[in-house]
């Protein structure tokens, strides 16, 4: 997948977009951005831009899909055709089907689903511009939209992708780092509870690197969590994340 050598970390330890290894990309977050949805949010991380909409709890047809003791969750993670370098077909790809599943499972560990038996809560994520970290940005947008819809949750979800590029672990990878790097590890947490709700690793890490990556992720997640809380209070937040 890496057919050409590109220098991803320079002699000063700075990344291709000028960031330090442990620095997030600029963030924008806004809730209640749509009219129809019961809850909605917009999240921007660098050039990655994501919309989320929540409908529900609402009725399901056909009824036999419901569960007697809890709400079911229906989740769709989708990239629009013009969000990527090459046009993506509008039909769901295998990648989108997998990500919809891991995102659903992450959300299921956060929502008090037992409060709404025999209903569905529908969470839709549309990636309108993709520059890596779309599932983690999507999960944050979804969690903000759920909060906007007033659906009780144990905590918000904050999430970020760790990368390994030129042998260095970096926080919040962008697309070039994802394409030419050695590993991509998206992780999502309920920060105040210290619980991991999503964890994937695409790439190769030593055991030590993995523990290091976990630590680095927690650092970014703590920052993102603060931005989320501010966005919910102000309905809008925009942060150029400085080195911390």
């Amino acid at each position, binding site marked *: 997948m890496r057919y050409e050598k590109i220098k991803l970390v320079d002699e000063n330890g700075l990344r291709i977009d000028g960031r330090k290894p442990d620095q997030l990309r600029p963030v924008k977050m806004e809730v209640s951005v749509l009219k129809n949805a019961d809850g909605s949010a917009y999240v921007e991380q660098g050039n990655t*831009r994501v919309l989320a909409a929540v409908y529900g709890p609402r009725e399901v047809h056909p009824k036999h899909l419901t569960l007697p003791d809890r709400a079911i969750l229906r989740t769709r993670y989708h990239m629009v*055709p013009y969000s990527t370098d090459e046009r993506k077909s*509008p039909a769901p790809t295998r990648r989108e089907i997998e990500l919809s599943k891991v995102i659903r499972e992450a959300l299921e560990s956060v929502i008090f689903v037992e409060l709404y038996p025999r209903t569905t809560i529908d969470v839709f994520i549309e990636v*309108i511009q*993709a520059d890596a970290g779309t599932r983690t940005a999507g999960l944050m947008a979804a969690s903000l939209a759920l909060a906007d819809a007033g659906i009780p949750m144990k905590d918000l979800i904050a999430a970020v992708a760790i990368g390994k590029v030129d042998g260095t672990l970096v926080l919040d990878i962008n697309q070039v780092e994802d394409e030419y790097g050695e590993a991509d590890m998206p992780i999502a947490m309920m920060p105040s509870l210290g619980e991991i709700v999503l964890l994937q690793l695409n790439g190769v890490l030593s055991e030590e690197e993995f523990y290091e990556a976990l630590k680095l992720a927690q650092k970014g997640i703590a920052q993102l969590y603060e931005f989320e809380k501010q966005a919910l209070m102000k309905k809008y937040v925009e942060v150029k994340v400085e080195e911390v």
Partner: protein
Amino acid sequence: MSMTPSNQRIVSKLKRSSIVSLIKKGLRVDGRKLDEYREITVIPNYISKAEGSAYAKIGGTLVIAGLKVGVGTPYPDMPNSGVITVNAEFVPFASPTFEPGPPDENAIELARVIDRSIRELHVIDLEKLAVVPGEKVYILWLDIYVFDHDGNLLDTSMLAAITTLLSARIPKAVVKENGRIVELDKEVREPLPIMNKVVTVSVGKVNDKFIVDPNIDEEQVLDCRLAVSLSEDGKIAGMQKMGSGTFTTEEVIEAVKLAKKASKTLFSKINEALKKIEEQ
């Protein structure tokens, strides 16, 4: 198979009759005149990954269109023309009445009405989009996504579509190895060969009155709709009766006149938005 929809949004009888009786008096629920559009926002170049794009909002209806460009083989019967494909998606994201899955008949109809108007009015000079005539041509994909449905999807989608085309900057096609290989140079960008501009105005009929830009509640009380595509110089560049009611010939003529008048609002919004980006 087309089927009478059974999942329509329900508007209470009280609301329905208040909408209808207001229109009878020449008024609208949201205070507009019968021939007045809701607030319109147009933002060209909204998506940086796309070769062209636009954010269009009419009232609460939000549509984002994007253009992606490739190089491919022309159609055998049009060997010297570029190819444009218009696709519209009504994702469940945008409305509780939208279902998941491939585009339904409503999304397909909308895309085809837009496609026909663009094609028939020669908005783009497709012959200028041949790279190696007969062998390699530009392929344009115009994808229209509805993200919030508050009525009048067609006019909003056309607004997003035309603004996307007018503001697009496509990568230059570079021919290599005697025309066998064509690559796109993303560093060198040019506008599309635009020949005309088009908008669509949907005119709704409520008894014997006509309104433009129906909002989502008004859509439920319309007898039917006439969508009229218009060029900037007032030519009719497409038409589609939508919905199961009827028009008399006189009513159709009245609707067309109303559409022509209202089209000016849309053109001025487009021109403003384009001017703004040119000044940048």
